[in-house]
């Protein structure tokens, strides 16, 4: 705010003087042909408009430095939640080491209140190229850079959905690497964690299409990239699908998670998100239906 008010007042003063000079000293047709008096400079005036800006700059600098150093010094409360964020082309991986939960694209965090703060500390890195985590209403941005761990924290006070997206150009689908942060009350968050901790390999015997879909899933290249906890699928390259059906969106945000969209996504990811790194699996219509039937059971 200080920065804004200082720059705004400089603009008004200097801009106003310029405007005044341009109007006051314009050439009029009634003027004589004589050149105006030539003034070559003035040491006092020039000294004044060197020293005053220096003072303003020093003031701005000190206030900025206080914010920067202050941000770094804030100590981490014991109630803080740790989350590891890993950027991928073009999706987000979230790991909750304390709870053994791994999820993708939709970050759930508890709300924090000033009396009993539970900020979420994000440890961020990248699996491939540089990305940047930016949810404007929660915090500034922080880059995710390979071979490097950056940290930042967020502490939303109001429950709700906070939108953001990758802010560092990361390749073809940079535009659709969206971020969704769900801030939940501590109770809702605990319930969500509990649900995410459940194994997804529940009994499917009553649902023949899903059983068949699971077989298709486990016998295709899907498992090279995706994990479904409790099965032999332990791929790390793509998002963890253990609780896929509990998410609102597909493909890191741009697509609603409906069975219809899911099916289209599996059959041709590049038509929904050109440049996405998931290949088309060329499944037959029957297999496609079965896999979809299986995936929508993964709550």
């Amino acid at each position: 705010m200080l920065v804004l008010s200082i720059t705004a007042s400089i603009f008004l003063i200097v801009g106003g003087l310029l405007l005044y000079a341009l109007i006051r000293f314009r050439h009029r047709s009634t003027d004589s042909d004589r050149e105006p008096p030539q003034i070559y400079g003035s040491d006092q005036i020039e000294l004044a408009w060197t020293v005053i800006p220096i003072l303003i700059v020093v003031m701005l600098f000190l206030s900025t430095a206080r914010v920067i150093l202050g941000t770094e010094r804030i100590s981490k409360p014991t109630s803080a939640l740790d989350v590891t964020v890993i950027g991928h082309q073009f999706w987000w991986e979230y790991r909750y080491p304390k709870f053994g939960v791994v999820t993708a694209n939709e970050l759930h965090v508890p709300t924090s209140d000033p009396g009993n703060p539970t900020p979420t500390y994000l440890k961020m890195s990248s699996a491939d190229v540089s990305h940047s985590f930016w949810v404007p209403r929660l915090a500034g941005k922080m880059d995710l850079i390979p071979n490097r761990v950056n940290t930042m924290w967020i502490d939303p006070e109001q429950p709700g959905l906070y939108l953001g997206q990758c802010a560092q150009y990361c390749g073809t689908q940079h535009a659709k690497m969206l971020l969704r942060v769900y801030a939940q009350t501590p109770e809702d968050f605990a319930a969500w964690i509990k649900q995410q901790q459940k194994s997804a390999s529940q009994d499917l015997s009553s649902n023949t299409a899903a059983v068949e879909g699971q077989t298709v899933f486990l016998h295709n290249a899907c498992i090279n990239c995706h994990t479904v906890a409790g099965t032999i699928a332990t791929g790390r390259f793509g998002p963890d699908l253990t609780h896929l059906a509990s998410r609102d969106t597909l493909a890191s945000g741009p697509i609603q998670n409906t069975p219809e969209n899911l099916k289209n996504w599996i059959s041709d990811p590049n038509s929904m998100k050109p440049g996405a790194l998931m290949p088309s699996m060329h499944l037959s219509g029957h297999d496609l239906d079965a896999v979809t039937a299986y995936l929508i059971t993964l709550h």
Partner: protein
Amino acid sequence: MANATPVMEAIDETLAGKRPVFEVVYEWATTVDHKKIGLMYIFLALIFLIVAGIEAILMRIQLAVPNNHFISPQVFNQLFTMHGTTMVFFMGMPILFGFGNYLVPLMIGARDMAFPRLNAFSFWISAFGGLLLYFSYFGASGLYGAGSAPDVGWFAYAPLTAKVFSPGHSTDYWTLSLLLSGIGTIGTALNIVTTTICMRCRGMTMMRLPLLVWLFLITSCMVFIAIGPLTAAQIMLTLDRYIGAHFFDTQAGGSAVLWMHYFWIFGHPEVYILVLPAFAFVNEIVPVFSRKAIFGYPAMVAATVAIGFISLSVWAHHMFTVGLGAAGNTFFVFATMVISVPTGIKIFNWLATIWGGKIHFATPMIFCVGFLFQFLIAGLTGIMLSAAPFDWQLSASYFVVAHFHYVLVGAIVFALFAAFYYWYPKVTGRMMSETLGKWHFWLFLIGFHLTFDFMHVPGLLGMPRRIYTYEAGRGWEMWNLIVGIGAIFQVVGTVCFIFNLIRSCFRGEIAGHDPWDAWTLEWATPSPPPSYNFAIEPTVHSRRPLWDLKHPEDPDSDYE
């Protein structure tokens, strides 16, 4: 002779069948005359201005409405990469060096550059660099064997440029074209420095140099320091891509941050390399149309030198979100803020130059007025961005895009247009049309403000840059539409300008040797100047030699 440009002469003679085309082309291709080389630089830059402008328009059409399918993400990413690279390396630098080439020897009373052949070589290698960049559309093996333009951004952050993430050869075209043009840039800078130091006419002491020459001198010195790291980085990247050197290849333990340091050690001084020549034009034009000497000449020189030095220590303000730590960030905040002091001195001195003058609002001057206001705003949003906490929120958003286009278009392009209108009569012997000039100014001014004022808003609302499309409902639609409409105004303004350039070449009023009643040495030569510039080497006694001649009762030399 006095009424015709060299270009027109050549066209006329060719059309009349007096000289075969081949002979004319051969003459221009082999020329070592600094004026012809300067004109070729400017011509080349105008071509690239049109190309990069078309790229910008395509992007604005794509972004005008949400979820647009006008162009694919791949094409969009190529467009912003090519737009940025072209505008910085093949429009900005050539056009400024074109003016430098043309004006510096004339203004210091020299007959040519110190190294005429090096000068020609520099031009041609820069031109071939530009051609190579665009040849990627045909020559690079894209993913499926088709040609493809580079799509890694003009900043080409590692490791996106590594072979794994950028297969094919498009990135190689990018690195090689910048390597070539970098060689040309260094050659020209060397030439300008040597010419300024060694070839001044009698009486032209350093403190009597026209400010334009001072600014080109400092710019050229900065080129030496800045282009080196860029060239080194391009070589390292090429080694990474061809022989697996792993400087920037993070998959093999290389460092992504190292590239950022190299790139911005070049990249930030580059901003000043582009903006100092723009200051140079304003320094010449504002006094002439205010009918006053520049206020505080020594302070202007000192401020320029200070900007030159400080600009070399601000690069990491592009990296506030990289996690460099509080100590590093704090240092670069300070360096960045401090640069506003010498820049402020310049603005105040221009203000004082206008103060008490008799301002003539001819086209060159109104463009300078646009420059003054827009540069003021650009500088102030720059101070805002220099505060790191502010930058954590707004870096890589449209706020930054708006800010630097305020510098690059609002300041540099406006100063360039002013320079075109101001020196056109010297180069061609004819005036540009004032009516068309005013149309150009107002259309471009409205377009500029519609585009770049409103671009700040989606940035504040969380719109990141370099995205090819966006969802409806985030409050960005209206602003992007306005920005798109502004871009169209700018195009129409630019068309007026180009039409004016061509038309005035044939129909413009005859200018005479000094149409603006100006004071520097180039106006003492005929328009256009003969190939040897000065029949007799001039002798000067002050900063404004022609003032002394015109006002023998009150010569400038008494006040220095």
